[in-house]
Each structure stands twice: as structure tokens, then as C-alpha cells.
């Protein structure tokens, strides 16, 4: 059961960066991850993201003068096909609010749909046979190849007439990465790292903020490298705590094949998550994600504080029950 808890903690800490900076795109979501003995899970996630400010092109922090927030409800599901392969999907519903005067204050809609999965090369503490005798392997880490595809089902800046109406990025994005977990103290303390590379495909805009365009406007976001390092601690079968540092670095975007000057992005944030396990198939995980609003903790990126609550229902592997 502790292994299940750890796996779910990883899932919550692997959350993609969410920002209510609507022009930069909203609507991304997380993918659920199943432990080895799990067949399927459903997750209902609530998040409140408060936009605190932005790091400018020189890495200087600029506080936000207005209230800009994003509320999100995400419905996620995961299904294990085999010992090595699982898939997951996620669809968010997004509500944006802004107090900037003379502009529309709120907007809502479906965000971008994410489908993905992972191929797991190794699991920790698996039973193997050596010399005809079964033994528990204590050397191999958990290692998985992760992959994903984001479909632009949300409303992007192409058709949204106001910032608060933006619920998606507007372009297709693929991701490929590695997930690695190693227990330092079995069933007690774990170290997890996740890395992935995201590539987005060029989007050809027919309009911009609802205004038809008369000239060519093709935009391709830069390639993005996401990282996360987490330390997970299990108190007992009911409680666990995890801390994480994560962030991303993104290269310059291009518009009509011309690179945007000084447009590379990066940021670092931190997550503290607590998991409560009231019964075997059900988990409750509140978490907070924050950034340090000081210079050089990011560049060309918004900074926010996010409160999350995830409710997860878990189905054990039917073959094992």
C-alpha cells in the first residue's frame, strides 16, 4: 500500500506548470500514474492558481497589480495494459478571472485534452529468480519512458476575444521523457526525478483575438525541457508528505520562421504535497505550489501560487485480486 501512496505522490508532483497567464496559454493538465498493482484510477482535481507577477526578459520580477486567477477542474483517468505499459487521459475545465479595469472579468471553457502514457522498464522491489530461488531485487530503480500528446481542444488566442476566454494553447504538443524513482529507505523515503522534452508544432493563425488576419502569421513555440526532483516521505499507511522542486527551460519561439529575440523562458517552483489515505481505494491529496517572487527565479514567465486538491479512486489489478 505504501508503494501505491508513493506512486500517487509522484503523480501529483509531476504536474505540468499551470499559470493563469492566459496569453501564455492555459488548459494544460496532469496525467495520472498507476502503481504496478493498479488496473485503473479516476482522479478529480481542483486547483486555484493566483497569478503574482512575471519575470521579464531580463529576469527581473514585476509584481502584478491586479487580481488574476484561474480555477480548474480536471478529470483524469489511467489504465494499465500490462506490467510495462499504461495510458492516461486528462480533460480540464477552466475558469479565468481578472480584475483589470475596462476589460471582461471572467471567462470559462474546456481546456486542452491530454493523452499520454509510460513504458516502465523496471519496477522497484520485484521478485526474480536467481539459481532457481525467488528473491526480491533491491538494486533496480523504477524507470519509465514517458510520452504524451496535447490536443488543442481549448480556446486559444486565435479565437478568444479576451484574455480571460483563453483556455488552451492552440497548438499540438508532444512530449518524451524519463521518470526515475529510487527508494532510499524502503517504504519510507524515496527520491524521484522526472525529465521530459516537449515539442510543439507550428500553428498557422487565421485570426488573432478574433480579428481576421490578412497576412501570414505562423507561430511555433520553442522546445521545452521540464524537470522535477522530489523527495517523498511516508509516515505510515495513512499519511505521506512530499516536497518537490520543478521547473522548465524553453528556447526561443519563431514567428514566420524568424526567432523571437530574447524570448527564451525558464522558471523554478516548489511543491509541498500531503496525502491522506482514508480507505484502500481512495486518496485525498492537498498540495501547494509556489515560486519565489524575486529576480532571476525565472525569465519571460509568470509566477503564481497554486492550491490543489485531488481526489483519487483506485482500482486494484483484477488479475491479482
Amino acid at each position, binding site marked *: 500500500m505504501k508503494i501505491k501512496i508513493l506512486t500517487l505522490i509522484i503523480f501529483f508532483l509531476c504536474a505540468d506548470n499551470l499559470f493563469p*497567464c*492566459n*496569453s*501564455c496559454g492555459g488548459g494544460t493538465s496532469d496525467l495520472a500514474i498507476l502503481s504496478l498493482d493498479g488496473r485503473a484510477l479516476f482522479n478529480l482535481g481542483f486547483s486555484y492558481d493566483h497569478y503574482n*507577477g*512575471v519575470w*521579464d*526578459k531580463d529576469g527581473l520580477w*514585476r*509584481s*502584478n*497589480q*491586479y487580481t488574476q486567477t484561474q480555477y480548474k477542474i480536471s478529470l483524469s483517468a489511467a489504465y494499465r495494459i500490462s506490467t510495462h505499459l499504461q495510458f492516461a487521459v486528462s480533460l480540464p475545465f477552466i475558469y479565468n478571472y481578472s480584475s*483589470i*479595469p*475596462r*476589460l471582461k472579468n471572467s471567462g470559462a471553457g474546456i481546456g486542452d485534452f491530454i493523452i499520454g502514457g509510460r513504458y516502465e522498464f523496471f519496477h522497484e522491489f520485484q521478485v526474480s529468480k536467481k539459481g532457481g530461488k525467488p528473491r526480491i531485487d533491491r538494486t533496480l530503480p523504477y524507470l519509465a519512458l514517458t510520452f504524451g500528446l496535447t490536443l488543442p481542444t481549448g480556446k486559444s*488566442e486565435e479565437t*478568444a*476575444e*479576451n*484574455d480571460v476566454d483563453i483556455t488552451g494553447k492552440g497548438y499540438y504538443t508532444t512530449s518524451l521523457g524519463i521518470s526515475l524513482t529510487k527508494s532510499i529507505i524502503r517504504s519510507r523515503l524515496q527520491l524521484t526525478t522526472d525529465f521530459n522534452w516537449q515539442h510543439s508544432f507550428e500553428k498557422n493563425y487565421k485570426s*488573432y*483575438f*478574433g*480579428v481576421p488576419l490578412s497576412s501570414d502569421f505562423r*507561430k511555433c*513555440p520553442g522546445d521545452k525541457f521540464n524537470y522535477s526532483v522530489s523527495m517523498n516521505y511516508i509516515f505510515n499507511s495513512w499519511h505521506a508528505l512530499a516536497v518537490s522542486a520543478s521547473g522548465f527551460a524553453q528556447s526561443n*519561439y519563431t*514567428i514566420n520562421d524568424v526567432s*523571437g*529575440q*530574447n*524570448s527564451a*523562458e525558464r522558471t523554478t517552483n516548489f511543491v509541498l504535497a500531503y496525502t491522506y489515505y482514508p480507505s484502500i481505494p481512495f486518496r485525498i491529496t492537498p498540495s501547494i505550489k509556489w515560486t519565489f517572487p524575486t529576480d532571476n527565479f525565472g525569465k*519571460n514567465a*509568470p509566477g503564481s501560487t497554486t492550491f490543489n486538491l485531488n481526489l483519487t479512486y483506485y482500482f486494484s489489478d483484477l488479475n491479482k485480486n
Partner: protein
Amino acid sequence: MKYLTYFTLVVITLYFGCQSDTPTDPGANQTGGYSKIHTVESNGTKFEVWSSSSSNFIYGYNNIGFKVFINNNEKTTGFVKFKATMYHGINGPSHTVPSKDNFYYDSQTQLFKGYIVFIMYDTAAFWAADYNYNNEAQIDSSVFPLYMNDLSQIKVWDNIITERIYILSLVSPLSPRVGLNDIELMLHESNGLVTYRELDSAEMFIKPWMESMGHGSGNNVNPVNLGGGMYKGTANFTMAGEWFLYDSIKYNGQFITKTPPPKFIFDVY
């Protein structure tokens, strides 16, 4: 006791010595948002220059007005002509700048109101102005200082088809804020930086763009002509940081701006 007496005398001397000989009226140098920035006087004729843009003549757009006194009598009718010239040294080349042809009296501000746009700034050059009241009294070639204002923005370009030079001046805001900003711009044409003409009936198409983030904004309103070469619209800067404001301009059915069009650069807070 002796030291106390000396100390008291010193304090009294400093206190009364630091006071002005003549009482001042704080309102005497301010009216309707304007403050007096310059005075020229000769042979009983006095021109006071007032500005609502700055406490000096500054590079960029200057919203100015004049008070005219002839033999100590303030004039409230007629017009003022004001022509400023930039000299690149003695006997060097010179240029004038766009300004209101005639400054007419405004009873509300009690000034002959108008504008001047200093489109050049060069520490090696000097400026002189000709003042004319109603073609009755004038003061010529009065030297004045011009100060740099880092927030002012002027865009100058030529067009080989129309064989004209165009000047696009940012009137306001010099320091825009996050959200919707009313944008005021002035458009002039010139054939050699000697004479200028306010251009009305042009079409302007603005595009706010955050280069470092790679996005623009919605809810912008293209500037429309208000007369006198002035255009007013709305630009939406959705977040803090550096924004470009591109302005493509069509006049007499053809674009007079180049590709890419001129852009103002703002540091938005």
C-alpha cells in the same frame, strides 16, 4: 551664558537670513495644469512659456502655452507664432520642428495654447526660437535649453514614393500601465525638416506585441483622427514587461509606413 547668547544669535541669523526677500505666490507659476518654464523679454515685450508636459522644454511632444505682456499689459486676443530652430553650431545646418501654426487664446487656461514636438536632441547643437504676437511684436533668436526625456518617443521615416518625411509623435501615455491605455499620437509630414504639415484623414492600425513572450492582445482600438494631426485609440497591455506598439499608417489609399512598421517601445508596469 555667553555661549548660549552666541548660539541664539546664530540661530536667529540663520533663520531670518534664509527667508526670501519677497513673498512668493505658489499659484503664480501654475495655471490649469500648466507651469511656467521659460520667459523672454525685450523692449517692453514679454513672452512667458508654460507647459503641461514638463518643467522644461523636453525632447518629444510638448503641450505648451504662452502669456504675452506688452508694456506690462497682458494680451488675451489674437495669436502667437512660435518657431524653434536647432542649429548644429554657428553657421552650421539648421532644422525646425513641428509646432502649432498659430497659438490661440484659451480663456479657461488663460494661455495661447498649442504644441511643439522636438524631434531631435543633440548636446552639440543649440536651440533658438522666434516669438511673434499677432504680427505686432516679436522677439527673435532667443536661445533656450532643451532637455532630454527618456520616456518621449518620436518615429521619423521617409517614403520614396511620396517623397516625404513622416513624423509620428507619441503624445500620451509616456508610461503606460497594465490594461487598457488611451493612446494619443500626432502625425506630420515634411519635405525637408524645415516645414511641417499636420496630417489628418490617415488610417492607423496598431498592434501591441510582447516580443519576449511572443503574444499580442485583444480589445485594441485603432486610433482615429481628432483633427490637427492628432489621433486617439486604445492599446491593451495585458501584463507587465516590455511591449512594442506597432503602427501601420495608410494615407491617401496607400501605406506610408515601411515593413515592419514603426514601433514605440514601452516598459509597462
